[in-house]
Structure formats: C-alpha cells, structure tokens
C-alpha cells in the first residue's frame, strides 16, 4: 500500500481542481466533495501507515528540471515520520471538514472556504510527502498561502485582512532564512534531496560550520512557521480566521510544519550541537514566554493560540535536547488535543456568539458534550495521566532533564505548571461558575451531530493516543519513529527517570489546583490579583510589548523607508533627469531666444519646471529648422572628409 501514498495528496488536489473549474451544480456541492476527498485520503493514509508500520518504505522520483549540468529531481517518499503525520493531518482535516459543515453553514463564502480547505490539505500532505528541500519549500509556501486566505476569510474587516497579511509576512521572514539555508546546502552539495544531503553530511562532506549555518537558517523557517519567539506575533492575530481553520491550520498541522522540518532534518541538526542548542533554547524560552501571556488572555481563542505557541516550544525543546521521539511524539498528541480544544471552543463560540471568556460561564449544564470533550483535551494538555499529553510531555521533560542544559528542564517544568493553570482558568471561566451573561448562556445549546462527532473522535484520541508511546507498552512509537532517520544518526533516547515523571505530575496538579482555587474556590478575587501585580499584569496583557516594538521598528520603518524611496525616485532621480532636460532648454532659450527665456524664466516656478521640463524638452529637441540643417550639413561634410581621407 505504501507505494500508493501519493494518492493521499491527489484526492484533495482533484477536489480543489474540480471545485475551481467545475461549472454549475457541482460547484454547489463543494462541501461534500471536499469532505469525501479528505475521507478517501484518510482511508488511504491509514492503510499506508499500517503498511509502513510493518516495515514497508516507498519512494519515487523523476526528472523535474535541469539547469546547466545540474539535475533537479522531484519525488516523494514515505517513512514512519511522514506516515504518522499523514494520518494525523488527514484525520484532523476530516474532522474539521465535518465540523465546518455545521459551523460555517450559511457563510457568505462557504464554497470558497471548502475549496481552500482542500487546497490546504493537499499542500500540507504534499509537504509531508516530498523528498527534497525544493519541494518542501514549495508546499511550505502554499500552506502559507492557504493560511493567508483563510485568516482573511472575512476580509470585510480591515483587522482580519491585516492579520492575514501579518501572518504571511512574518512567516515570510522566516522563509527567507530557510531559503538561504537551502541555498547554502545546494551551494555545497549540488543537490537538494534529503537522502543525499543526510549521507553527505554524515560522511563528513560538509564542515561543521556549514552544517550549523544551514541548520540554523532552516530553523529560521521553522521559527516563522511554528510561531516561535521572536516571530510568534502572527499566530494570536491569526485567530481572526474561522475557528475550525484555527483548529486545523493554526493548531494541529501547518504550525507543526516547523517542527516537522526540524524532525525531518534531524540527521543534519543532530550533527551540530550548536544548532541543537539554539533549537532547544528557542523552544524552551518560547514555551514559558507564551505560557505567561496565555495566563491573562480574555479571548478563549487567544488563550489557545498562546498555548499552541507554548506547546510548539515544547516540541522544539524536545528536538533540541536531542530527542527526535520527544518532539515528534508531542507533535502528534498536541495535534489531537489542541484541535479538540479549538473545535470545542468553536462549539462554544457558535453557541454564545462571543469569544470573551468573561462573557461566558455556566455553560456546563447546557453543553455537556462540549464541556466533557473540552475537559478531556484540557487535562490531556495539562499532563494528567494516562491521557496523551502526559506521555508526550513527559518525554520532552525527560529529554530536557538529560540534556546538557538542565536549566531548560526547570523552565519547562514552570511552563507545565502555567499550562495547567491557564487551561484550568479557561475551563472554569467558560463552563463553570455563574453565567456572567445570562442572555447568552440561556440560548446556548449543542449544535448537532456534525459538530459533536468530531469532538468525540478527537477526545478519544486526545485521551488514548499517548498509549502509543507509553512505557507500559514498551515505547512502540519510539522504535517506529527512529526508522525515519538514516542509521547512524545520533538519537538521544534518555533513560526514564521517576523524578521527572513525579515533578511533571506535581506541576500539572498544582497548576490545576491553584487555578481551581482562585477561579473556582474564590481564594482571591481577580481584581485584587490584578491590583497586586499591576506592572506584571500590564506587561503580560500587552504581550511584552513585542507587537508595539515590531510595529514601530519594522512596519513603520519599512513604510518610512519606502516613502523615502518613492520620494527619492520622484524628486531626486527623476528630478535629475528632468533638470538636465530643463537646464538644456533654459540655456537654449536664454541664449537663443531672449523674449521667451525672460518670460518663461519668470513664470516657471520650480514645480512647474519639473512638469514642464518634458514639454520644453520636446520643443528643443525637434522642430528647429536650423538644427536640422546644421546636422545635415555636418553629416555631409563629415562623410566627405572621410571619403577624402580614405582615398
């Protein structure tokens, strides 16, 4: 079955193409078409995973382009890492497709929405399947395009289209770094194929400096796509898109592409301690950085967005600590529990028509299904055994603990506490306590099977997927995923430590307890809490002023620079051109034709001079009979002289 893996990507592509070009009635059934295509893909990808689990591999490659002597092939491959990710992406995508049937019903751009979802699914699957960096970059940008379009889905509001632009441009900054990284690799090896690069790197064809440079540049792309500090600013704004989109793109799949990239290039990264160090530091810092911001967010989607950033940081921490398994395992579990949380949040938002946590409350009795599934996701993320999040987070913490930089472990532990804290806070504010907005709470209700089914399926996975990597079953996931890197890659698979598990569990429980105490038990009032930590509160609430800083330095700076360039072009470069013409004309006038020069000279202001330069220039250039004559005579005489001299 593995050799049919390319079908996985084909179905959504065909669906997208059909949706775009098919006329009439078929266009009206875009939702069905998209859902069926993804379902088909999902089935195939499951079959592929089973096959790959059994040890099958498949790859194919063909000539794509030739520049000079260099052949650039394009191809696909399936290995454990991509096989797992194919299933995850297809599953989440399928759930989102089903969920959207109800959530997006009656939307102005319902059909377009499904078309772009299909395109996204195709691009994401393509990203997982390709076997070289050029292909990776192509799909990498395509998912960025889909993200742009979907964030700006309701582009009537300027804020939404701004958010879409911000997302595209911020990630583009990272992409440029990644592109340069690709160029570095190509400049040294003349190939872009993963396998060739890994073997070249391992055989010592690349110096350590080159490996480090290339790895860090590639990591730049990951930072952008996975919203790591300092390029994290776009993800919270990206919540402007429809909630199912946030679940699919901005929680489970696209933002995970950065992690996938590092995992994919792990054979390269693992050769450079420096690169790994920076991956770990970035991840660890982002994990705690975003978690602190999530604590004070009022918008339920923003809480989840910062939580996503934080969890992605965990993944990078795991990878940076040298554990491929920790990073990719957390990638899988996070995809399930975070998309679950987003979809549950979507269900809530659909019911109460607000995203503000302070306008919710008391929804549990009316939305039990949503509340329960949400809580499964929340507990999974908080790291309560035996839910999925516990196992994967444990792996990450373990890796950090055993890494050369144990400080990262303690940072991650604090982040784990904060995670448990803010998710409990959000849970309580949304579902429990008294309804702060009676009107909204009274009308809240579940929205039918199309929204409930995906929640149920994902809840099942958020709870159970962790068992794949659980020590109870002998870490099957670990052994499986190790097959996706060439033999000889250094994989740090640390010994389990009871201390780590214990501390992680403690942090999670403590976080839940403190948040429960504050918001549920009423230990301290929110107001007094804010008063006590005013400066800290403002700092967090304003997200450490990073947006403001970027707004000033980069956005305003670029705009100012462009304005300067435009003015420079208009007035200096063009001005010089016009001035030369104007000067020549003025000279001609001043010397040749007194009255005109005097009159024109007096009338012409500087501004008019620039405008009139061309007009005058035109007069000077053509039409003077004597000029013609002189030219003619000169030419004749010159020819004559030439003829005489040549005799």
């Amino acid at each position: 079955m593995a050799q049919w893996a390319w079908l996985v990507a084909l179905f959504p592509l065909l669906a997208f193409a059909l949706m775009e070009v098919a006329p009439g009635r078929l266009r009206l059934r875009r939702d069905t078409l998209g859902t069926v295509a993804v379902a088909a893909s999902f089935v195939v990808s499951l079959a592929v995973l089973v096959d790959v689990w059994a040890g099958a591999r498949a790859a194919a490659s063909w000539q794509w382009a030739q520049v000079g002597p260099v052949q650039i092939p394009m191809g696909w491959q399936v290995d454990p890492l991509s096989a797992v990710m194919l299933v995850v992406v297809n599953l989440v995508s399928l759930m989102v497709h089903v969920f959207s049937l109800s959530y997006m019903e009656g939307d102005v751009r319902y059909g377009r929405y499904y078309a772009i979802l299909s395109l996204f699914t195709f691009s994401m699957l393509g990203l997982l399947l390709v076997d070289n960096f050029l292909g990776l970059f192509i799909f990498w940008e395509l998912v960025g395009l889909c993200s742009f379009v979907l964030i700006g889905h309701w582009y009537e509001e300027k804020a939404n289209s701004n958010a879409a632009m911000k997302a595209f441009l911020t990630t583009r900054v990272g992409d440029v770094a990644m592109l340069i990284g690709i160029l570095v690799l190509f400049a040294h090896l003349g190939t872009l194929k993963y396998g060739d690069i890994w073997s070249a790197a391992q055989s010592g064809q690349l110096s350590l400096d080159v490996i480090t440079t290339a790895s860090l540049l590639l990591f730049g792309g990951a930072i952008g796509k996975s919203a790591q500090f300092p390029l994290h600013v776009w993800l919270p704004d990206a919540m402007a898109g429809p909630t199912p989109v946030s679940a699919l793109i901005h929680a489970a799949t696209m933002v995970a592409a950065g992690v996938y990239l590092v995992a994919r290039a792990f054979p390269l990264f693992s050769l450079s301690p420096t690169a790994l160090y920076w991956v770990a530091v970035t991840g660890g810092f982002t994990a705690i950085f975003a978690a602190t911001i999530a604590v004070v967010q009022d918008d339920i989607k923003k809480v989840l967005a910062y939580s996503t950033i934080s969890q992605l940081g965990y993944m990078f921490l795991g990878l940076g600590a040298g554990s491929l398994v920790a990073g990719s395992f957390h990638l899988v579990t996070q995809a399930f529990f975070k998309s679950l949380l987003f979809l549950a949040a979507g269900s809530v938002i659909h019911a109460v028509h607000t995203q503000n946590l302070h306008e919710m409350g008391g929804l549990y009795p009316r939305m039990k299904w949503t509340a329960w599934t949400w809580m499964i996701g929340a507990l999974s993320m908080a790291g309560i055994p035996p839910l999925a999040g516990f196992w994967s987070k444990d792996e990450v913490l373990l890796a950090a603990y055993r890494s050369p930089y144990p400080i990262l472990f303690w940072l991650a532990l604090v982040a784990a506490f904060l995670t448990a804290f803010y998710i409990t806070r959000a849970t309580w504010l949304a579902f429990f306590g008294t309804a702060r907005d009676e009107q909204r709470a009274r009308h809240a209700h579940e929205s039918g099977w199309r929204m409930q089914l995906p929640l149920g399926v994902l809840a099942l996975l958020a709870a159970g997927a962790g068992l794949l990597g659980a020590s109870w079953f002998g870490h099957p996931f670990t052994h499986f995923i190790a097959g996706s890197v060439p033999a000889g890659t250094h994989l740090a698979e640390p010994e389990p430590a009871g201390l780590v598990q214990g501390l992680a569990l403690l942090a999670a429980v403590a976080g839940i307890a403190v948040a429960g105490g504050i918001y549920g038990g009423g230990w301290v009032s929110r107001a007094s809490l804010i008063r006590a930590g005013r400066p800290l509160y403002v700092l967090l609430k304003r997200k450490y002023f990073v947006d403001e800083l970027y707004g000033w330095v980069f956005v305003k700076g670029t705009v100012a620079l462009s304005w300067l360039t435009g003015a420079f072009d208009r007035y200096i470069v063009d001005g010089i051109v016009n001035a030369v013409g104007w000067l020549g004309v003025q000279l001609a006038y001043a010397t040749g034709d007194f009255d005109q020069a005097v009159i024109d000279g007096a009338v012409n202001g500087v501004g008019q001079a620039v405008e009139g330069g061309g007009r005058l220039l035109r007069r000077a250039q053509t039409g003077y009979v004597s000029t013609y004559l002189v030219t003619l005579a000169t030419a004749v005489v010159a020819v004559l002289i030439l003829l005489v001299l040549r005799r």
Partner: protein
Amino acid sequence: MLTTLVFLPLVGSLILLLLPKDRHVWLRGIATAVSAVEVLISLLLLARFVPGQAGMQFVERASWIPSIGVQYYLGVDGVSLALVLVTSLVTLLATITSYSIQQQVKEFYALLLLLETGMLGVFVALDYVLFYVFWELVLVPMYFIIGIWGGPRRQYAALKFFLYTLAGSVIMLVGILALYFGTGLGTFDMLALQQAGPRLAGSLQWWIFLAFFLGFAVKVPIFPFHTWLPDAHVEAPTGGSMILAGVLLKMGAYGFYRIALPTLPQAAHQWMLPLATLGVISILYGALAAMAQKDLKKMVAYSSISHMGFVTLGLAALTPASISGAVFVMISHGLISPLMFFLVGTVFYERLHTRMLDELGGLFDLMPLAGVIFAFGIFANLGLPGLSGFIGEFFTLLGSFSTFQTLVIVSSLGLVLTAAYHLWMMQRVLMGRAEDLGGGHGPLADISRRELVVAVPLMILVLVLGVYPGPLLHLMNPAVLHLQNVVQVASRWGGM
C-alpha cells in the same frame, strides 16, 4: 521561416494602412488574424526546434551590404525562441485587449504590428546592423502608441521614453562600431564577433562593455536608469503597457545575454560585481518604491523594476543555474506583467475609471472572478511557489549564491518586501467592503468573455511553467551552457 515570422506583421501593417479608416471590425479582425498567425508560426518553430542542440537553428543568411560586411542573418537558439513565443503571444493578447480603443484604430493596429516586427527582429537578428535596425524600429511605434493613445501625461511620458532609450541605443551603436573597428574583421556577424571579441585588449573590452551596458541598462531598466519606465507604463494604453512590460524590457536583458556577455567575456568578469550590485539595488529599490505608490499601475510598474533586478543579478552571476533562472524570470515576467497590466489597466480601469489605491476596495465581492484572477496575478508576481514567478527567482538565487553570497542574502530581503507590497495591494484593492469603493458605483459587470480570452492563456501558462518548468529549462539549457562555456573558456584564455 524566420523571415516570414518577422515580416508578416509588417505586411499586415501595410495592409491595414490600405483599408478604410472607419471599418473598425475589419481592422481589428485583420490585426488579430495576423498576430494569431504569428503565434501559430512561433508554435511551429517550437515544434520543429531540435532541443538539446547548441547553436543557432532556422538560420537564414544573405548578403546585404557587402562592402562593409552587413548581412541579413537570422537564427534562434532556445532562449530567443522562448522570447519569440512570449512576444507573439503577448502581442496577440495586446491586440485583443486593444479592441476597446476607439480613436485612430487603423493607425494603432498598424503601429502595433510594426512593433511586433521590430521586437521579433531583435530576438532573431544575428547581425549587429540588423539588430540595431530592429532595435530602433521598436522605438518609433512605441513612442507613438504612448504619445497618441496614452493617458493625460502621455506626451511627457512618450518623449521621456523616446529620449531615454534613444540615448541608450546611440551609445550602444557606438559600442557596436567600436567592436566592428576594434576587431577589424569587417563583419557585423554576431557569432563571428563573438569569436573575435575575447581577443580584444582588456581596456577596450571594458569600454565597449560600458557602451553596451548603458544601452541595455536603460531598456532593462536597471537602477538608476529606470525613471522612464513608471511614466511610460502609467501613461501607455493597456495594450502598450502589456507589450512594454512583457517584451520590451526583455530586450535589454536579451542584449546582455546575446551580445555583451559572450562577446566580451573578460569585461563581463570585471563588470559582474557592479552589475549584480545594481541588480540587487533594483530589486530592493523597486520594491520599496512600489510600496510608496498611490497609483495601482505605477505600483505594478515599479514591481517590474524589482523583478528585472533578478534578471540582472542572474545574468551577472554567470553560472548555468543563474542564467537559466534569469531567462526564466524574463519569460515568466513576460507572462505575469501583461496579466497584471491588463487587469489594472483594462478590467478595473474601464469599469471604475480610477487606479488610485485609496479609491479602490472590495473588488473581491464586486467582481468575484476578476478578483480571483487578480489575486492569482498578485501571487504569481510575488513569487508564490507553484507559479512561474517563483521558479525563475529560485533558480536565479540558487545559481547566484555561489558567486555573490552577500548580495543574494541582501536581495532575499526583497522577497519579503515584494510580498509586503503585493499583499498590501491586494488588501487595498480586493479586500474590504464593497462600500469602500469610492465614487458611488452601481453594480459592476464581472470580467467579460473577451477579457477572459486574454487572461486565461496567461494564467494557464504561468501555472504550467510553475508546476513543471522542466521543458522550458530543457529548451534553453544548451544555449545557457554554451554561454557559460564561452565566458569561462574565454576568460581563461584571456588570462585576465
């Protein structure tokens, strides 16, 4: 075959002149038919072209002015064939676009066809004098097209265009003559001079290269010789802008490819760095200047400067990948920019009568199909992978990286800037509410069938070349390798 290709439009132009003025349908019909036949002929050329073979094909050669060694000498290699294809296609589409022109229809189409003769001639001529004649022939019809059918400041723009490019080409002529007398072969044969050029003294080569550089740089245009371009593009009628952006700009780059680089390889090596630097400056400068514009058409015009910067960079880097990339950018820009100018200048302008960004908005809702096509154009122009713009830029950067590491890194900043102003353009034109559109317009008709006829072929080609660039790269590969080989061998041989 090439003679037919080049001179058929001229014949068409003469036929048009014989027709009565007011039979617009006939005039349009004949012009369209002639340019359609041109497309067919160039497709036939493509079909008969033997790829993978270095050297010129379809060569036609006859003595013209034997006393000074001028020949009638035509031929194409993969690169010029690709440019011929783009030229004939863009001219056909410009012809269709210009159906909306109502005054002096006869003269317009006669000039348009004359222009086509000139452009095709430039790409197939293999004799310097012939080349120069075609080069100048392009200038005149374009001057009139801008100056008669252009916008409010057309005379200024037309004259600026004319003087700028004329000055450039006169300097180029000096270069040609210097080459002619310097080699002393008594021939204007490009290929023969290509053999002889490397044997010239280094300093003479340098000066001749300077002359060629000035001549071609104005046409490309390379910063700081670009200021004619925004004015000319903005004032020209849409058909003119399409040809200007799609074909005329390529002539300068083609000049570098065909003449300056292979004929004067040692000088080319000395000029590499300055040339590449100017290319990178053009990339960034064009992007920044585009961001500052208020007129949509001007924005697109500056984006052309930015894109042509990639061409300059790629040609200057002199590696096979970078040259392929540069030529690919030429082809792809030759498809994308006509699409953009068509949408901005005809589809939007004829309905809204404004191009000011502040007065636009919400077109996604008002003209859904046109909006999607414009979005397609924007993403193609900003270099989205999967569309042709990306391929060229990618290979340009890929090939240039080994030669100019720092410059490539600097120029990649241009990718972000390019994305920025394109998205901004998209936000301000397409997104937002329908009410954002100033001027209280009634319901707008979406893109018409005739307009689709213009847009769709370009879109298909952009997509196909973006997804599978292999055939095009294969087509020009021998020519690119040949150029790179010539330059390398000669520079080694020259030992300088």
